[in-house]
């Protein structure tokens, strides 16, 4: 007991003391944590009483099952990575508040006025999210513009110099080396510092809003890497855009601001402490994602709908209104800062990172006869999108299996950058499509082999940032591109973009898709006006727009939000109808072949993602078949040693533990009393809230909800908590901290019912009980997500360590 008394440590500050003490006493603890056989003796202690509940109804198979488990643990079953896996790495977020006594006490203390303050704080946070997201977007835009301008000027001067003298291969080498070295830096920081910043970040945010905790996804470090990575990969000339990553950036900003502190910087501003839990954070993250979309495309409504589409299972109208506020602030901030930067202050004419330019309804109006043509373009977009996704699927699978070392990933990114430059150069070199330089608004006109006063029109497409190329495809007057150029460009860019997506660089797929689509759409428009002898369909620009919409829809398969985003980005409401038709067709056609790019990547990452509804043919599965059993339970008053052992057991990395009545008599019914989370247990152990200490009046103050919040979101691992041998014999009373009213279902509940409860409430644990309220099993996200509708009916995914 003396030992217990000596070890009064209320926070992690005196970790040194802990560690000093630990050196002498670690041995038993480490033995307990070890995965070897040594733990088995101790593990029996919890499991022997944990089975109390099942003894009545467990069948004889169980022993065999246990044996199998033991065997397989000795010889781990190794398989190559495939899409039918669920990774153990991903955990759920706790959207459901743990309604324990502490929580109820705090909520009761907050009066009406205080709730109003909280509401005002929410609005303030949303405004800050909007402003900061807009500023980050400005920063990215300005830096990219300047760096890319510098690069293109250098290369252009070089090419101009060598065109006259000969030795263009040096220009090619210069271009390729510049690209590769810039991309190398971008890829290095992503691969070695923060791998989660790779890609567009939309799949990750989708998962987050779905309720999956992706490690590191909303950290400040990720934001920094993401922003730098995007700048470098766009400047590096990859076939990528900077729009997708804005959504991720907005989310990180939202998550950071709403917590009022940064764990990376180790700064706590002591504000917004009320929002330090997953429920509130998720709301702000959805606002951040909306602000990101709105900054990227100048589409505030589209941003709100994006959040709605991706995280809509938990929604209310006040939240929607707040999110809309954040989006508007974000696009307004971007707009005003950029207008100041461009020298015409308060003009407010550049609402988004990508600006599709003005689509005049007079010049680019459409007639009813064109609707079938647009729908046909949607079909083409769906097919091409499916092709894109299928190719990218194989590539990603290959990458996961073979190119998993960071240095290989960096080399791959560099190679792609070099090849992109080479392909661009060769295309420009071979192209004989010259256009007069006068009256065109080309930023970097490359003459190359054209006559003086003309420029190479292939170079406008390749020798430019993708955003600018998209806009010039939309708006350049008819005749600026010849069909051959467009065809070759589409073909090359399709493969380049497909190859690029999934590299270890942070980059989005929106702009490349738009660019591919705009190129073939324009080609389509030109050939159409050629076929009809140029009667009414004179302007290929609107076909470029529809092609872009079709291609993007075919690749990402977003519906409502994408329609609105495109509509807002063009600033023309009359295009809403054809864009909607095109996107619908593209989605229908594409879904026939293969699923959307983001869903595909979520699946390939083995994320336990819950879709809108349970698989349609799953009605005859019941909770009994779905649940995991046996469940590791805790008694209401539990021995500390047992708790530590359970938490340390690496083979069962559980996060929620049902709490049962603590009677030592094993024959009696041990009914479910509540549910306690691993994080709560760890905080309890850290603060040493033991019954004996309370009896000895050693506890200076009661534990408050604040202590749990301070530890959020990075709870220390159990290994860092030191519990001495004497303390192991103490008892811990969980009744005050457990959630006394967990959601439960009976064994007979069908899978769709369980699924609905789980998805709609954002649960993390669902306890399955029998009719005597004894714990029979536990349903978690992974138990539900493993059922999936595959090609041949219902499939079951297997769990794997990744």
């Amino acid at each position, binding site marked *: 007991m003396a030992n217990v008394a000596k070890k009064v440590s209320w926070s992690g500050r005196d970790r040194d003391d802990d560690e000093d003490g630990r050196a002498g006493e670690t041995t038993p603890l480490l033995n307990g944590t070890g995965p070897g056989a040594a733990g088995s003796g101790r593990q029996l202690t919890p499991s022997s009483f944990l089975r109390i509940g099942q003894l009545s109804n467990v069948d004889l198979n169980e022993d065999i099952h246990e044996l199998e488990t033991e065997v397989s643990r000795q010889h781990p079953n190794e398989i190559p990575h495939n899409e039918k896996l669920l990774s153990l790495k991903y955990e759920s977020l706790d959207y459901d508040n743990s309604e324990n006594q502490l929580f109820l006490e705090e909520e009761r203390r907050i009066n009406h006025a205080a709730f109003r303050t909280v509401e005002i704080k929410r609005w303030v946070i949303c405004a800050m999210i909007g402003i900061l997201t807009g500023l980050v977007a400005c920063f990215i835009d300005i830096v990219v513009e300047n760096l890319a301008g510098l690069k293109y000027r250098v290369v252009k001067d070089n090419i101009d110099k060598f065109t006259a003298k000969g030795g263009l291969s040096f220009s090619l080498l210069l271009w390729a080396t510049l690209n590769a070295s810039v991309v190398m830096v971008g890829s290095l920081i992503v691969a070695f510092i923060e791998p989660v910043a790779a890609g567009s970040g939309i799949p990750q945010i989708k998962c987050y809003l779905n309720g999956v905790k992706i490690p590191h996804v909303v950290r400040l470090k990720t934001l920094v890497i993401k922003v730098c990575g995007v700048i470098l990969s766009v400047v590096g000339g990859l076939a990528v855009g900077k729009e997708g990553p804005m959504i991720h950036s907005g989310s990180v900003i939202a998550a950071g601001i709403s917590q009022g502190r940064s764990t990376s910087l180790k700064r706590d501003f002591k504000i917004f402490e009320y929002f330090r839990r997953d429920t509130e954070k998720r709301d702000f993250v959805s606002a951040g994602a909306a602000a990101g979309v709105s900054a990227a495309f100048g589409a505030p409504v589209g941003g709100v709908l994006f959040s709605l589409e991706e995280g809509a299972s938990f929604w209310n109208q006040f939240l929607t209104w707040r999110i809309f506020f954040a989006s508007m602030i974000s696009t307004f901030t971007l707009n005003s800062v950029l207008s100041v930067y461009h020298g015409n202050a308060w003009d407010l004419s550049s609402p988004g990172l990508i600006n599709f330019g003005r689509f005049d309804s007079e010049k680019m109006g459409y007639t009813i006869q064109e609707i079938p043509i647009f729908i046909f373009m949607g079909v083409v977009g769906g097919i091409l999108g499916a092709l894109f996704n299928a190719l990218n699927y194989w590539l990603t699978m290959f990458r996961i299996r073979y190119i998993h070392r960071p240095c290989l990933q960096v080399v791959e990114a560099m*190679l792609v950058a070099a090849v992109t430059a080479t392909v661009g150069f060769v295309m420009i070199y071979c192209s004989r499509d010259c256009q007069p330089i006068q009256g065109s608004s080309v930023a970097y006109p490359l003459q190359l082999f054209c006559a003086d006063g003309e420029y190479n029109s292939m170079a406008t497409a390749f020798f430019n940032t993708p955003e600018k190329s998209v806009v010039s495809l939309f708006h350049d007057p008819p005749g600026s591109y010849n069909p051959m150029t467009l065809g070759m460009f589409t073909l090359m860019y399709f493969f380049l973009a497909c190859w690029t997506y999934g590299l270890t660089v942070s980059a989005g797929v929106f702009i490349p898709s738009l660019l591919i689509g705009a190129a073939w759409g324009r080609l389509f428009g030109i050939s159409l006006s050629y076929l009809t002898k140029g009667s009414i369909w004179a302007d290929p620009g609107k076909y470029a727009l529809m092609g872009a919409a079709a291609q993007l829809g075919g690749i990402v398969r977003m519906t409502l939000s994408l329609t609105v985003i495109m509509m807002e980005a063009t600033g023309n409401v009359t295009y809403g109808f054809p864009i909607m038709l095109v996107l619908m067709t593209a989605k229908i056609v594409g879904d026939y072949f293969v699923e959307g790019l983001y869903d595909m990547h979520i699946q390939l990452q083995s994320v336990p993602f819950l879709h809108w509804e349970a698989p349609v043919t799953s009605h005859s599965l019941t909770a009994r*078949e779905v649940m995991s059993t046996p469940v590791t339970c805790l008694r209401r008053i539990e021995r500390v040693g047992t708790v530590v052992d359970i938490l340390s057991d690496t083979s069962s990395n559980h996060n929620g533990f049902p709490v049962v009545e603590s009677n030592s008599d094993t024959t009696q019914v041990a009914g479910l009393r509540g549910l306690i989370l691993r994080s709560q247990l760890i905080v309890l152990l850290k603060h040493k809230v033991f019954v004996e200490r309370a009896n000895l009046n050693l506890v200076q103050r009661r534990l408050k909800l604040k202590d749990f919040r301070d530890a959020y979101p990075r709870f220390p691992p159990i290994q860092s908590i030191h519990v001495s041998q004497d303390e192991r014999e103490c008892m811990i009373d969980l009744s005050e901290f457990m959630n006394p009213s967990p959601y439960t279902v009976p064994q007979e509940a069908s899978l769709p019912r369980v699924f609905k409860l789980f998805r709609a409430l954002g649960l993390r644990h669902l306890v399955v009980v029998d009719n005597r309220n004894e714990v029979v099993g536990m349903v978690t996200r992974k138990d539900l997500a493993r059922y999936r509708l595959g090609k041949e009916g219902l499939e079951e995914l297997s769990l794997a360590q990744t």
Partner: protein
Amino acid sequence: LCRVLLPALALTLALALFGFAAAAGPRQTPALELAQELAEELWSAGLPGDLPELEPECRSLLAAFAEGSAALTGCLGRRARPVRLCQGCHGHYRRLLAQYGSIASAVGNSSESHNCAKSILTSDRLQIVVTLSEFFNETWEAANCANCLKNNSEGLSNSTEEFLDLFNKSLTCFEHNLQGQAIDLSPSNYTEVCKNCNETYKKLNDLYTHLQRINRQGGESAHSAHLCIDVEDAMNITRKLWSRTFNCSLPCSDTVPVIAVSSFILFLPIVFYLSSFLHSKQKKRILILPKRIQSNANLVNIQEKYS
């Protein structure tokens, strides 16, 4: 005479008033014409001009404007090809601007309601004077003539003069060198020209790029990104002659090294992927058996159950 005239006068008044009242009406122009004719008759008959009619000052201003615009139109038309608008017509344009200005600011001596600006510029639907002047302004803007004129738009600026001198020099050079070969008439035999005029052409080209750069740095707004049309067109003609007709700018195409370098770079990824496929250890996932009630609740079972 009075008996004849009075009804006519009444008619005139009525018509004129009708024309004023229904300024947007379809019948106003013939009505006005009619009124005009009748008014002229009245004038010739020596009647006092208290009709809704232009005052003499205004009439003369209008006449000056008409002459000025006719002169400018003629100038523009004559100098359309090769484009010499800014050099030739800036005087006309300046005069027309002044005339328009005097109309817009002139106030007739009788009363405010009768000032020239109002009666000439805004009293009918067509507003032909305004339209004309807008047309000239727009043309001038589009041609970007302000760019090659002096700041007070009197005469060409120095750089433009210099450029045009050089342009004329190169044209004469072309002519001189072509005279010898005119008999040959074979299109590939312009090597003389290329050799002899290369220097002048280079100078011209450099000056043009220089002017462009200065222009781009100076003016930030979009429309001043172009040089004035005279300079642009002169350069265009020369460049076309040089590279299309004479075929002088033959860039040395080094296809072989480019192909070599590019195929080397394109070859690298293949090597990379092959080597990583062959040498990299395939990533294995360790399967974890879930704890379930029935160990036979596997895929096959489900398939049998539901198919």
